């Protein structure tokens, strides 16, 4: 099956050119939600979400504050389990398996689905230890090649290769965020979730992260929450629009969502009438 997909991709990349190369790839869902409800106590944060997130594409989730975008992201890798009042109904599948089944260990799930947070959160350890952390907690020994591969993957290698043993906290904010991306990709997950990864960064650092996401998606599936609509339009293949009340009101190719949204509220939101 995977061979077949690879073939299709090769064929379609040939006919496509440049930046839109991915756009015409067939969508092979890797994550899917069906009738997903999330409650915090009595408050409903997500209301009947049904969505299929395609493999090796960038899916952006946009929407006004408090619409549940981050909640949705956290329910994918079960980070919501940390919140005791959080309750989940419905189904969320990763490659066909409901991640909320009793026999799914959230720790194992998070080894397949990495996450990058809004605020850069490197560990107070050396750059090298930050990168090798994921492999080490999985009981694998990390080589210098692993460190270099992850840091190159996060477009940070050239800036830090001479100071791998200095603290990750000595880096600038943008470098710290790329270190967190390196930390997330070092154990080679399949999906990377990003929760407003550039909102705490200056525009130059943010644009580096955006370029990086464009490269990451060759190997990983990227789901990115952003409050920045221009960013979603620039970097994503698919866009999901959540609106207040935790509803998913539109999910389609990014171009369609931004140029010809089906839902009037989405048009209002995108054109800045509210939000």
């Amino acid at each position, binding site marked *: 099956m995977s061979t077949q997909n690879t073939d299709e991709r090769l064929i379609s990349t040939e006919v496509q050119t440049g930046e839109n190369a991915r756009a015409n790839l067939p969508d092979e869902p890797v994550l899917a939600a069906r009738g997903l409800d999330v409650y915090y106590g009595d408050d409903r944060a997500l209301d009947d979400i049904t969505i299929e997130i395609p493999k090796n594409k960038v899916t952006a989730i946009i929407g006004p504050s408090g619409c549940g975008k981050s909640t949705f992201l956290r329910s994918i890798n079960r980070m919501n389990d940390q919140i005791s009042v959080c309750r989940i109904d419905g189904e969320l599948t990763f490659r066909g398996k409901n991640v909320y089944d009793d026999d799914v260990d959230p720790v194992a799930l998070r080894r397949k689905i990495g996450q990058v947070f809004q605020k850069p*959160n490197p560990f*107070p350890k050396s750059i090298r230890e930050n990168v090798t*952390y*994921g492999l080490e*907690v*999985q009981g694998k020994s990390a080589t210098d090649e692993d460190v270099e591969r992850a840091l190159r993957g996060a477009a940070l290698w050239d800036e830090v290769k001479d100071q791998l043993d200095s603290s990750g906290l000595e880096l600038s904010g943008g470098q710290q965020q790329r270190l967190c991306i390196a930390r997330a990709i070092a154990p080679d997950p399949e999906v990377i*979730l990003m929760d407003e990864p550039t909102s705490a960064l200056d525009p130059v650092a943010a644009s580096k992260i955006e370029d990086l996401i464009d490269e990451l998606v060759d190997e990983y599936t990227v789901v990115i929450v952003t409050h920045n609509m221009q960013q979603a339009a620039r970097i994503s293949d698919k866009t999901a629009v959540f609106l207040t009340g935790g509803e998913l009101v539109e999910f389609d190719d990014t171009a369609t969502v931004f140029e010809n949204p089906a839902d009037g509220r989405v048009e209002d939101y995108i054109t800045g009438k509210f939000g």
Partner: protein
Amino acid sequence: MSTQTDELFGDVDLGWEHLKNRLFLGLIFAASMFGVVMLALLLLDILTDFYVGLTEFNINLVDFLTRSGSRREELAGFQGAIIASVMLVIVTAFLSFFIGVGSAIYLEEYAPKNRLTRLIEANLANLAGVPSIVYGLLALAAFRNGIGLGPIVLVGAIALALLVMPIIIVASQEALRAVPDGVRNGSYATGATKWQTIRRVVLPAAIPGILTGTILALARAIGETAPLLMVGALFVNRVPYGPFDRYSAMPTQIYAWAAEPSQHFIHLAAVGIVVLLTIMLCMNGVAIYLRNKYETEV
């Protein structure tokens, strides 16, 4: 004042307000200096006695530090008490550190926010305020007489460990709480279990704070007198053979000397106080050094 200023601000009279400001500043500055002045007076008094002891009573500092106690004032030394105190602190640290840090990890990282947790935390806060002599009574009843251990180093250390444990727990909880949640989430999201997160990320980040709190607690333990008096740490002033031997610690030895009628013994007590204070200040210094060294890194 120029006429223009008068014209602009002539109707504003702030003289009295500024005076109040200065008066209040003076008052609170005096209040904050009170403790410092008292400490200075105390130190001056002790150092005078210390000096008089060294000169008029010919107390030789080297002899003082290398001799054990004696009924004969010119032969009495502090060595037994110093070594007993060091032993006490080591055994106390051993007994209180693991239980204290373990409790703190449970309360901060694992405990659900429910009634039981709140009950435990309220009790810890109360325990930290219990007078030290009560811990002495407890150790006396339960360990010295209860299971018949007698007036040995271990029983004194148990009393001191109980005394400092709440302090260590509270300090460790604060150190753990200071580790940002973002770092924990980063670890979970990388596929670490809870224990891996605590062991590899949270504890290393919190350990300077935990050590600082522990050292400050032990510095308090080394100066505690009342619980040791309760469990009978007195009268035997020689180097103890081990944690199961009888002993007299630094503060109890000072207490014993200070109660003697002879001026020589009283000045021995002053020299002992200087030694005890020096050790305590060194411990506090180490704690401050640790805190400053690591505080910028997290």
